[in-house]
């Protein structure tokens, strides 16, 4: 999928700063808009699956809300201009560092590409995570081994559980074993459970 990010913010500095950060870290197409009306005019040409980073005062306008309502392929992250401690994944703060911003955008894209519930094919990355979960590694260790953030590991694990319908670590281990994701010739399986 060609990733698309549209930024709606009054400040040219913010627009271009975010675009710069995204270009450097994520392979995606970025377009900049000053306000929702500018965006809405061309919205028909923008595809139907994209991520919008939008300044919070525009996000709360009724025109934006009704625009977004029936567009299932569109995900939103709001941008908050004030100096606040970063918390949720669906919010970018101007004082977030680049890593945090990239992470939030990546998580949003992951959620967007997530298959419908019940589809049980795992992505390659999810299988990597699953293998390490099955071998008993903790989230932090998995993150280090795969060079991703702990947060991303948790998000992968959530998707794995959702796709497979298996919650417990031992249950996931059984799944990994019966699908030959891990080599069990030299280990006693019941020790893994």
């Amino acid at each position, binding site marked *: 999928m060609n990733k698309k990010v549209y930024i709606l913010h009054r400040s040219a500095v913010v627009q271009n700063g975010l675009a710069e950060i995204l270009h450097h870290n994520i392979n995606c197409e970025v377009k900049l808009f000053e306000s929702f009306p500018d965006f809405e005019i061309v919205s028909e040409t923008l595809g139907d699956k994209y991520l919008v980073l939008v300044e919070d005062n525009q996000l709360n306008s009724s025109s934006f809300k009704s625009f977004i309502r029936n567009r299932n392929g569109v995900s939103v992250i709001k941008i908050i201009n004030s100096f606040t401690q970063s918390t949720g994944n669906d919010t970018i703060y101007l004082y977030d560092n680049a890593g945090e911003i990239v992470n939030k955008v990546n998580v949003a894209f992951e959620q967007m590409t997530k298959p419908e519930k019940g589809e*049980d094919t795992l992505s390659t990355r999810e299988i990597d995570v699953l293998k390490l979960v099955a071998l008993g590694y903790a989230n932090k260790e998995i993150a280090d081994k795969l060079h991703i953030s702990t947060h991303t590991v948790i998000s992968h694990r959530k998707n794995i559980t959702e796709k*497979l*319908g*298996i*919650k*417990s670590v*031992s*249950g996931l281990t*059984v*799944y990994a*074993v*019966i*699908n030959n994701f891990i080599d069990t010739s030299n280990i006693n*399986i*019941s020790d893994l*459970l």
Partner: protein
Amino acid sequence: MDIFVKEHKVFDLINNNYHLLPVINRFGVNLGNKDKTLNEICKINDINIDFFLAIVNTYNNKDYFPEKELKSFSPLMIVKYLKKTHTYYTNYMLPKLEKLLHKLIESDSSDSNQLIVIEQFYFKYKSELLLHIKEEEEKVFPLVEKMVNNKTYDAGFNIHSYEKEHSDVDSKINDLKNLIIKYIEPTYDENICYEFLVTLFRFEKDINDHARIEDNILIPQLLEIERAQNE
């Protein structure tokens, strides 16, 4: 029929929900009672009718919460009932599941180890369940007895951590079902597999209801006693 009342008959109960068969059995209620009402049956068997109804209704209806009845029977009664249920699991349900699982493995015509891994997972689940039951019998239930008899309350056990443990135990049963239904190669005898699954479903339902009685009846009663003692 959403709520059973004392005018109902054993047949109404079982006809409406046959999962209640082992439940009434734990009260010592047998079949063959002709058209006697639940009230009459309870009198004959020296059972507190409110307690009986609270239990069967909690089993029968997820949303049922016997608030009014809660105060009318002793937690000791519940403990006695819960212990009987534990015995039913350890002496009947688990051995039955194991026998079927063993038969299932024997029926497997392939040389894969999938079902062996499933069996190991089952044993893992079983050991956790047995540990949970042991904790209840050795820590929780004696604590209940102490609290009811108004002796010193020792806080070695945290009532609030109790519910979380239940969700851990039942997510494994759910995983077991998922693995067998969705992911295991069906190289086994199907009828044995279906029988195993049906038994597993019945067990899951029973144990979920059992946990709900612990969470929704026993725990609130304990909290109430604790509150009263702190006053």
